[in-house]
């Protein structure tokens, strides 16, 4: 189980240097902008059970990626806690990483390596033995239909093929929690379908899934619960049905916009 409690992250704003450019437009009023700090995530809390999918929603720049980077231990929280299966992400990040898979739409591949070499590399870094790596690659290659390009240089692969390789790379150590940061960005319908099927499969296999997206039809199809973030703070938490009900909207897009544009305290609409 993933437990996130009052997670916060602030960054020091860049100092104005001799050569720094003057902003062309005035800085829009943003509660996160408190010089010398920028509070990217302001006290977000939620929980995710094994075998469920939590959708992380929010407009661009809301703080979703920063939040997911903290959960994946790439960034250290400024305050608050998060733990997975009782393991604290700050106290024991290496242990969390052993149980964690991370996939985003912008994740690249090593162009000069073949998918097999790249997946093997990540398997070894996760401490999986060679025999298990070989078996898992064969299994995933069959499931994701990767046989035809498994030994081709990654530079030559299409976007869809690359995302399949990324999925295999994410799964090579059989993680218990998987975080997806806009994983269908830039993919065609077929490739996006493969990714969405994979997310659903993760859930069926009892994994804890955190899933960030801008596509409401994906939320409706996959998510058991939703956490909506705006300006670094939580604006809503609940199920998809709760979201529609509380905003009195018919469609998720409308509900999303209504929640985002609602002024006031965090969780006002929840």
């Amino acid at each position, binding site marked *: 189980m993933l437990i996130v409690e009052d997670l916060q992250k602030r*960054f*020091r704003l860049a100092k104005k240097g001799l050569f720094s450019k003057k902003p062309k437009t005035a800085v829009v009023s943003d509660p996160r902008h408190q010089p010398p700090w920028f509070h990217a995530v302001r006290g977000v809390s939620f929980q995710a059970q094994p075998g469920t999918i939590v959708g992380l929603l929010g407009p661009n720049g809301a703080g979703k990626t920063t939040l997911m*980077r903290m959960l*994946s*231990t*790439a*960034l*250290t929280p400024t305050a608050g806690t998060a733990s997975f299966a009782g393991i604290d992400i700050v106290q024991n990040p*290496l*242990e969390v*990483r*052993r149980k*964690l898979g*991370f996939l*985003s739409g*912008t*994740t*690249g*591949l*090593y*162009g*000069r*390596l073949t998918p097999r*070499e790249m997946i093997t*590399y*990540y398997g*070894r*870094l*996760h*401490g999986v033995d060679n025999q298990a790596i070989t078996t898992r690659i064969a299994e995933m290659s069959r499931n994701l239909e990767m046989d035809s390009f498994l030994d081709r240089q990654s530079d030559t692969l299409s976007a869809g093929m690359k995302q399949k390789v990324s999925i295999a*790379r994410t799964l090579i150590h059989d993680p218990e929690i998987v975080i997806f940061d806009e994983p269908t960005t830039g993919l065609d319908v077929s490739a996006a379908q493969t990714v969405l099927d994979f997310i659903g499969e993760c859930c069926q296999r009892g994994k804890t899934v955190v899933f960030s997206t801008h596509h409401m039809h994906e939320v409706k199809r996959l998510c058991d619960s939703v956490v909506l973030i705006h300006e670094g703070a939580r604006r809503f938490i609940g199920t998809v049905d709760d979201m529609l009900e509380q905003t009195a909207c018919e469609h998720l897009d409308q509900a999303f916009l209504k929640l985002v544009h609602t002024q006031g305290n965090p969780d006002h609409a929840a």
Partner: protein
Amino acid sequence: MLHNILTVFAKELREVLRDRKTLIFMCVLPVALIPLLASVSVKFVTEANEKARTETLEYAVYHQERMPELLHGFDDVTGFARVDGIAQTEIAAAIEDERIDFALVIPEPPEVGAAHIELHYNTASQTSKIDDRVEEIVDAYAKKVQTDALTQLGLTTAEAREGILTPVVVDTHSTADMREVIGEAAGGLLPYLFIIFCFLGCLYPAIDLAAGEKERGTLETLLLAPVPRVQLVIGKFLVVFVAGVTAAVLAIVGMGAWLLSEGQELRGALGEVVNSVSTLDLVLIGAMLIPTAAIFAAMLLSISIYAKSFKEAQSYTAPLNMIVILPVALAMMPGVELDGTWAMVPLTNTSLAIKELIKGTMDYTLLVLILASTTILAGLLLGFCTWWFRREDVLFRN
């Protein structure tokens, strides 16, 4: 720990070896360029000197009736052709237009004192031998005039005339052998080339392994592997370091191959110097470049990990070229000699040590000091690099 470092090292090395640009800078250029540069420069210098020594020089002479015998000197040897019909007022223009190579204006012989012959020629040409060739003939003429005058004074033997003209002579006995003399004059260039190749060998892998990884979007997933970041950095550092050492060693191998193939054929003092550089000297030069490669690897990796993209990393490393070139070029300056102080100056010390090894005058105590100081600096820079690599504001600058 070692397993993780080796895993990162093996993967990064495999990628680097598949990159054509890196292979060119790491392997092809050092092996090919040094022998090529050496061969071409030796060929050009030899040919230019030979041409300057033997080409026919066209000249004009004014008031030749004042020293007719001097002109016979020019007529008696080959390689000079007299040109008439150029007015004395247009000497400079004629030389500039290359109608003549030089002009002689002969003065009225004075009653007392020396006659000052004017020699007009273009002194800008570095390979010109005009003054040497003209002075050779003028000196022979002056010697004859001198001998005639002294003979008339009763000094009939050469010894007697010599005793009057140069009663005291300093005989110089140089303690420097030819290797030292030529090594001092030309030995600064080789360390410059070796060090620059070492730097270039590190450059592309460093940019590719850090900034390139950021740009491709693979860094974040790598950071999420259950491997301490220090181990990731060391794995990457080792690849950049190996690339730098390989480039430097291949530059030395290229030099060695050239010495073996051409050294025997080089004539005179240069050939003597070339043949006196031993295998041990080349090995020690290689040893000097190992900590230097570590310094470059740590520096470049630190810069590269700060950059957001390959292009940004290239723009940061461009000024670094100058920072590297300056201390290395310092070793070529007159008066900069290897001592305890210079042994502590990074890069200049390596450059000076390589120069001393080529000259054959290395003080091995200083060699140890240089190796120690350079290794300590490399260690400190690697420490900085690992600390830098752990900083969030460096890894996630955007």
